[in-house]
């Protein structure tokens, strides 16, 4: 069986894996997305650079709180600061502090009540009244701040939306301060929707130049990567505080904002790439404190020069612990909202934008498919080292491209999905490879096709091209590797100038369709085959009679014309021959002397002819008559009586058991034949069912007298493989000299086998059988089958005595006993 290629290593796995990753990537599956975000964050950190924009931050920091008292401060502090900075001539101020309630903390109500009472009682002047007014004015923080904001003329205030599905389409009563800070937008495709708005108190809102929302929207993993540039509320779009500030700085009105182009927000000269929800990716300039910070207390105390603010965008916001809003950002886990706004402004003003254009997705998908193709088709064909190298290169190439695009071009190319596919695919491939090689160590048996291929290659390597072709023919021709093997074989045939054979191979390949240039080659081969004139292939010195070929002359051995092959035996081939002189059909048995040593061959041949001639003299009805012996070239042959019957091999099978009386008759006949031969000093040496013929007319004949063991016993020099020793006598087994009684033992084995269909001496190897013959008594026949008559069993066991002297001494005795026993059986 061929190694089962692990299913995991095949392309279907790679294909499924690719499609899964592709689907996950396109649907932005959470875990994959969060991995991608992690890679985004890493890249974001590499993108940091010193900001170069006129943005300063006035920070309400821990030092300010310490010096100016607990938060919240009286709003007058803020009013003072706004007035102060306004005096320095900033471009604009943006407050990241949302005052949604009027200030009631300062006792203003009391003073107002006092004033009302005074006015009601007619006191509208005087020191006390003016003191009341003075105090009221002083305590009226909101009033002061309103005035400061109004006087500064360039203050942008925050506003907050509760995000959610919109409550109502539009409201006729939208206050003017909201209208001036937004633009009408009836079709807010995909943008964030506000459910409820929380503006500063109306006095502030009216006084403010513009309002901008300060909603911070985090991604699923809680990290703030995007700024929602617009929030849609009641039919209008509201820019964020940062966008508002940038627009204001560039003198662009909110009404000029256009989101008509997909994936883009345009306003004046600004063109900002956005995602499907109208959000902008924030390119962080660095960790906290990348922008110029001034402590609130320093500003108020006048420690900061006016030049620090002139013409600049001044952001005011808290960064002190406990009062500021901190968010998780790619660059830092705790990042104040005011600096996020600063970053957004920087991004907008210096066009330092990050984008994820729509086509990125196509590139990623295409690349995922490409990686899939690599995993499915290229990787399995690579060696381990190469595959690791190539995979690493692909991984590095893609990821460095992604990093480069991000860092220097501001374009966000997905890293994770293709990398993940490559890593998982590679791991699967390597681990299955490992499993396969582990399996390889277990050495699984190969199937017959694989064996045929191997054998074919071996033969081809040996130059035995015909045999190789025979083997390759057994392999499925549809297999590309088989085609290749055949093609190479055909080329080998060509090299040997065996053009017809080459053509035959090409034609065999062609049965499975065209392949390479075989069509042309067949043409060339046929032509070459026709024009070439072949000499006789090799010397015609083959030692068997050549039967193939339609030659006119009838092949002969000696003077016998060969009609056909009758069969093949261990020693040689048996042919049907005709003696032309007397027109008699004979059986011709040829004997090879291959195994016999060159220097002995004469000797052995002499012995062979001597014995065969002696056997030829044996004229007995139970012995196959030998007519003639001779030799032709290297081939010796015996011409003998042609018999119409079969040997006894069939009758030792349980299905074709002979009646006991018939067994006795056969044994009796063989014994008579043996007796006749032994009396003339000729020992058969190889009595076995295969050498006993039972003719159609019932005659019993012993075949192969004298020649059976000649070749075997002669070839002692190099070693010769023994046939089955089952019928050997104990004296044959140990290599002693044998006489006729050895034949009787062998006859006993055959008789035993015919009686019970079992061999008296068996074993799982030649040597075990031999050992048993020499040492173990056979099982009693009557024990094996009680039906077997006593006298039959007696004859068989007496033939099988290991002690030669206890055996029957002559065939005559055996024949007589068989006769008596038959009479007993009736």
């Amino acid at each position, binding site marked *: 069986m061929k190694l089962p290629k692990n299913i995991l290593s095949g392309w279907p796995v790679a294909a499924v894996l690719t499609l899964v990753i592709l689907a996950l990537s396109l649907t932005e599956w959470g875990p994959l997305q969060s991995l991608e975000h992690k890679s985004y964050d890493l890249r974001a950190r590499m993108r940091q650079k010193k900001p170069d924009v006129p943005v300063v931050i006035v920070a309400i920091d821990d030092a300010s709180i310490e010096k100016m008292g607990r938060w919240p401060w009286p709003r007058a502090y803020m009013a003072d600061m706004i007035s102060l900075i306004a005096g320095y001539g900033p471009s604009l101020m943006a407050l990241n502090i949302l005052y949604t309630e009027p200030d009631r903390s300062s006792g203003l109500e009391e003073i107002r009540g006092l004033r009302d009472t005074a006015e009601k009682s007619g006191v509208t002047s005087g020191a006390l009244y003016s003191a009341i007014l003075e105090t009221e004015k002083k305590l009226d923080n909101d009033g002061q701040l309103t005035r400061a904001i109004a006087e500064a003329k360039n203050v942008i205030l925050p506003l907050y939306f509760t995000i959610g599905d919109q409550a109502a389409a539009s409201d006729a009563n939208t206050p003017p301060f909201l209208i001036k800070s937004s633009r009408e937008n009836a079709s807010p495709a995909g943008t964030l929707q506000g459910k409820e708005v929380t503006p500063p108190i109306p006095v502030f809102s009216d006084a403010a130049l513009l309002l901008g929302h300060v909603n911070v929207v985090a991604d699923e993993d809680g990290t703030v990567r995007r700024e929602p540039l617009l929030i849609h509320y009641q039919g209008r779009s509201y820019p964020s505080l940062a966008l508002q500030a940038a627009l204001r700085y560039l003198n662009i009105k909110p009404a000029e904002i256009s989101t008509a182009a997909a994936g883009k927000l345009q306003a004046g000269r600004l063109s900002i790439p956005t995602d499907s929800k109208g959000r902008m990716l924030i390119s962080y300039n660095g960790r906290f404190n990348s922008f110029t910070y001034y402590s609130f207390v320093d500003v108020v105390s006048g420690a900061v020069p006016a030049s620090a603010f002139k013409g600049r965008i001044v952001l005011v916001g808290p960064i002190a612990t406990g009062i500021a809003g901190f968010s998780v950002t790619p660059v830092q886990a705790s990042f104040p909202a005011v600096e996020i706004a600063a970053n957004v402004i920087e991004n907008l003003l210096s066009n330092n934008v990050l984008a994820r254009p729509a086509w990125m997705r196509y590139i990623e998908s295409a690349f995922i498919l490409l990686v899939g193709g690599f995993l499915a088709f290229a990787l399995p064909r690579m060696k381990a080292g190469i595959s690791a190298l190539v995979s690493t290169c692909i991984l590095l190439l893609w990821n460095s491209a992604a990093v480069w695009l991000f860092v220097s071009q501001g374009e966000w190319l997905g890293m994770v999905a293709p990398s993940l596919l490559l890593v998982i695919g590679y791991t699967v491939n390597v681990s299955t490879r490992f499993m396969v090689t582990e399996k390889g160590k277990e050495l699984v048996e190969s199937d017959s096709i694989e064996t045929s291929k191997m054998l074919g290659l071996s033969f081809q390597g040996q130059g*035995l091209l015909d045999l190789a072709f025979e083997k390759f023919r057994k392999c499925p021709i549809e297999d590309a590797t088989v085609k290749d093997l055949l093609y190479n074989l055909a080329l080998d045939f060509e090299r040997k100038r065996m053009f017809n054979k080459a053509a035959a191979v090409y034609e065999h390949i062609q049965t499975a369709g065209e392949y390479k240039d075989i069509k042309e080659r067949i043409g060339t081969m046929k032509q070459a085959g026709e024009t070439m004139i072949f000499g006789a292939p090799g010397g015609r010195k083959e030692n068997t009679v050549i039967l193939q070929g339609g030659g006119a002359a009838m092949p002969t051995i000696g003077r016998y014309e060969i009609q056909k092959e009758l069969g093949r035996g261990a020693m040689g081939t048996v042919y049907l021959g005709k003696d032309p002189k007397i027109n008699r059909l004979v059986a011709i048995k040829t004997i090879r002397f291959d195994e016999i040593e060159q220097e002995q061959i004469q000797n052995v041949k002499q012995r062979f002819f001597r014995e065969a001639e002696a056997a030829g003299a044996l004229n007995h009805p139970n012995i196959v008559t030998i007519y003639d012996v001779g030799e032709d070239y290297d081939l010796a042959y015996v011409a003998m009586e042609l018999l119409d019957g079969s040997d006894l091999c069939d009758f030792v099978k349980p299905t074709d058991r002979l009646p006991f009386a018939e067994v006795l008759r056969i044994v009796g006949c063989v014994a008579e034949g043996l007796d006749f031969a032994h009396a003339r000093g000729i020992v058969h040496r190889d009595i076995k069912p295969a050498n006993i013929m039972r003719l159609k007319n019932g005659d019993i004949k012993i075949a192969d007298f004298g020649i059976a063991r000649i070749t075997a016993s002669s070839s002692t020099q190099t*070693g010769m493989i023994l046939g089955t020793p089952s019928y050997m006598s104990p004296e044959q087994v140990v290599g002693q000299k044998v006489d006729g009684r050895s034949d009787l033992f062998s006859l006993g084995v055959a008789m035993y086998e015919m009686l019970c269909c079992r061999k008296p001496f068996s074993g799982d190897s030649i040597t075990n059988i031999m050992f048993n013959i020499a040492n173990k008594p056979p099982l009693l026949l009557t024990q094996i089958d009680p039906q077997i008559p006593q006298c039959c069993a007696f004859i068989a066991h007496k033939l099988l005595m290991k002690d030669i002297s206890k055996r029957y001494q002559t065939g005559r005795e055996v024949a007589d006993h068989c006769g008596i026993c038959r009479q007993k059986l009736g």
Partner: protein
Amino acid sequence: MDMTVFGITDKGMVRPGNEDALLIDERLGLLAVADGMGGHRGGEVASNMALDVLKDYLVKLSEGSDTFMGNVDARVSKQANLLASGIRLANLAIFEAAASNPSWRGMGTTIVAVLLQEGRAGIAHVGDSRLYLLRRGQIQQITGDHSLVAEQVRQGIITAEEARNSPRKNVITRALGQWEELDIEMQDIELLDGDRLLLCSDGLNGMVSDAEIAALLEAYPSSEQSCHALVEVANSYGGKDNITAVVAAFQKEKGLLSGLKKMFQRG
């Protein structure tokens, strides 16, 4: 282990041709000797085919083929099993080649093969070609002959003395190319520093006694010299059969240089 190996095959004093063959492939760590039989060059063809096919098979395995012939015997090492697999393939090749060509009919061959890896030797053999191990001056016959007399001696039918004088001394009970199925004997040995292996055909051990072989190996520490000496002595005793000897000497790699060399070879 560092190996120095040398092999030699000689047709002897009597035979007209050489039906023995030998194979040394240091890259594969493969050593083998085959002794062919069968007239009309059949023996020569069989022994050479056996070794060629075995080598091709192992080369293909080293190139990533995963074909394995027959059943795995878990009791012995992978190396021994691989040898057996290759020998089974060679057996089939010879068997079919013999059936295809009348002049090759009946050809067969013995084989003894060793596959070395990291100080271990996987061994497979069929027939009466032998593997000897010479360790600290003691010679030990590792393989048991698959010959009639050897098996009869093992079973106590005849004595060792009778075996030496038996006319059937050369009758073997197993050989490649005879049947489609082949029973191969496999084993493993661990090699130690200073060990020497001798693979030989019966033309050597039939002429030269084990003690003499041991003495000759001791006398000539070089693999090459000892091969020449063994063949020379076998010929001087009559050289009745082809003589083949492959001698491999093993030495632990020593020193920095070999360590470095090893590192580079691994890399």
